[in-house]
């Protein structure tokens, strides 16, 4: 069939024969005579062609005839069609350059891909396909793509309702599509374009960023995979640096030992030990409180570092206890006979260690005697409990280390969670066998 025959005629004012001026605003076109102001009726056949063309053009993200430079080649958008597979709909623009041929721009959910038709068939490898050096995995199958709207020029006369059977294979950033009907079979590779690239070429709105709840395109690469890959060396380096810092600062030195004893249920024993010299600016102190003899009771030890000059006090307390017995399961015991106290940020100076001790024993093995001082019966004759204190400068704060570790890991873990949510939403669309480990691994690859 020869290219369609067309005739040209002038459109002039039916009333006075004068020149018609065309004004376009948004979707509407007005055709009015410049001389007498008569408007051309919308039902006039020529007016219909003009307005219909204009309406379609006004609705397109890239009006037909627009030129744009993409990857060094100037392209003109000559045709547009809209297709659906029953689930989703998308737009396709045909780009043309007489010396470079044709390309496709596929717009779906605000994302743009550049499509090129292949001249050589892909290689098969298991269920995957390989083109160039890129491996594609099956994604969509058994779908039928149908044209719902079409406008402009195409190298074949596209009609609304045309159907092809479509099968798609993906890798991050690329989709390999097979389309066939009874007369032909064709392969196309489409590459997802960045917002900058498509915006610079055709001035379209940038693609929307993914948020949890949205469904990514089948070939949309996970932005979180990129970040995880870039970040984990930094995390490892930070971990090593943290280890170094922890060993540098986690020392204790110059232990000094003190001891005192207290009688269970006796009066509070208070004793001051010292001097304890702190030469450096700010120090933490470690106090080990051991009460090896406590049994069936507790010992409450309050310690306070008191600066001799300023009388500032830095306090902590330990509660040592031990209980044991026998029951149907055998011997049991609970409690700790030794505690390690860590006191923070003592400024330089000379300190006294003020220790207050109180002990208690449950169940007496001695005799009771009336104590006039407190007005109660008190057990007497209980052996005294010995308290051994070891005071050292510095402290190893493992808790600081783990807290820092956690803070270092939180951002990459957050990226991992988001990546999993993204890939779950993306792979949920996959036809055929459900997504397996290979699909997840492929999602981590770079385009």
């Amino acid at each position: 069939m020869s290219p369609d025959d067309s005739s040209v005629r002038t459109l002039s004012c039916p009333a006075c024969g004068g020149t018609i001026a065309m004004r376009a605003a948004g979707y509407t076109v007005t055709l009015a005579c410049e001389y007498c102001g008569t408007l051309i009726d919308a039902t006039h056949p020529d007016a219909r062609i003009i307005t219909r063309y204009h309406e379609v053009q006004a609705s397109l993200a890239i009006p037909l005839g627009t030129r744009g430079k993409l990857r060094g080649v100037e392209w003109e958008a000559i045709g547009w069609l809209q297709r659906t597979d029953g689930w989703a709909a998308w737009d396709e623009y045909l780009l043309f350059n007489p010396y470079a041929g044709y390309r496709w721009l596929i717009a779906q959910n605000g994302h743009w891909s550049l499509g090129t038709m292949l001249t050589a068939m892909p290689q098969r490898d298991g269920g995957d396909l390989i083109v160039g050096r890129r491996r594609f995995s099956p994604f969509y199958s058994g779908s039928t793509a149908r044209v719902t709207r079409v406008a402009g020029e195409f190298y074949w006369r596209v009609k609304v309702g045309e159907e092809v059977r479509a099968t798609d294979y993906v890798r991050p950033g690329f989709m390999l599509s097979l389309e066939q009907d009874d007369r032909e079979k064709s392969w196309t590779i489409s590459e997802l374009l960045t917002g900058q690239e498509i915006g610079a070429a055709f001035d379209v709105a940038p693609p929307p960023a993914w948020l949890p709840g949205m469904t990514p395109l089948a070939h949309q690469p996970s932005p979180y995979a990129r970040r995880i890959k870039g970040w984990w060396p930094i995390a490892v380096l930070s971990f090593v640096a943290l280890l170094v810092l922890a060993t540098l600062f986690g020392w204790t030195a110059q232990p000094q030992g003190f001891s005192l004893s207290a009688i269970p249920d006796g009066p509070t024993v208070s004793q001051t030990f010292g001097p304890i010299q702190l030469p450096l600016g700010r120090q933490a102190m470690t106090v080990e409180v051991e009460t090896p003899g406590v049994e069936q009771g507790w010992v409450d030890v309050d310690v306070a570092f008191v600066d001799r000059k300023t009388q500032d006090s830095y306090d902590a307390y330990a509660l040592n206890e031990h209980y044991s017995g026998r029951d149907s399961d055998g011997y049991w015991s609970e409690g700790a006979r030794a505690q390690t106290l860590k006191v923070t940020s003592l400024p330089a100076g000379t300190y006294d260690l003020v220790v207050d001790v109180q002990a208690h024993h449950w169940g007496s093995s001695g005799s009771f005697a009336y104590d006039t001082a407190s007005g109660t019966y008190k057990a007497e004759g209980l052996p005294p409990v010995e308290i051994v204190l070891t005071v050292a400068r510095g402290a190893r704060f493992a808790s600081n280390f783990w807290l820092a570790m956690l803070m270092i890991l939180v951002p990459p873990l957050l990226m991992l969670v988001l990546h999993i949510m993204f890939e779950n939403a993306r792979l949920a669309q996959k036809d055929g066998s459900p997504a397996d480990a290979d699909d997840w691994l492929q999602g981590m690859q770079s385009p």
Partner: protein
Amino acid sequence: MQSLACPTCGAEVVFRSPALPVRVCDYCRTLVVRYSQSAQAMGETAVLPFDISPVQIGTQGQCFDQSFSIIGRVRWAWDDGAWNEWLMLLADGSHAWLGEAMGQFMALREVKLAGSLAQMIRRLMNDAPVMPGESGNIAGHSYEITDIRTVRCIGCEGELPFTAPAGWEALSVDFRNRDGRCASFQKDRHGPSLYVGHHVTLASLQPRNLRSLPGWSLHPHVA
């Protein structure tokens, strides 16, 4: 693009796209409406592009390790589209064909239909139906059918090794494989013929004397 005479003043009015329905004449400022079947069906049907190609008679280049010159053309069409076949005269005096469709080029040379032939070729020669996707061996390589159409010759120009009869119709089948090779089978009133070759890009032909198209600068990689 199409250059038409303004019906009012006779000045040249250029329609860059066959889909464009109206242009303002630069001289008399009247609206010139291009009325066609396809323009009527905007939204429902596409229009076919104007018959322009970057290749023209006289274009020269390199193919099959030789220099060539384009000396003729046959244009084939089916209901909903068309393509060109350019006749190449190679330096050694033999002929080859440069098929141009959808912006893709196939460089083909005729081979004798003799000896052991693939099943699919035999079936085509016997007018048995084939489907896209069927594969078989041609001249030592495996190919798959990619296109099957009944076509009509709608134009010829230049020097051709035959006379194109009026109403010339043929069955045309295209094949391609994984390496970029391609083949083409044709059967008409006079019998079957088979062509084998490979896909080329316009740039890889190192062409000279391409048609210059107004509004388009020659592609950077193409002379």
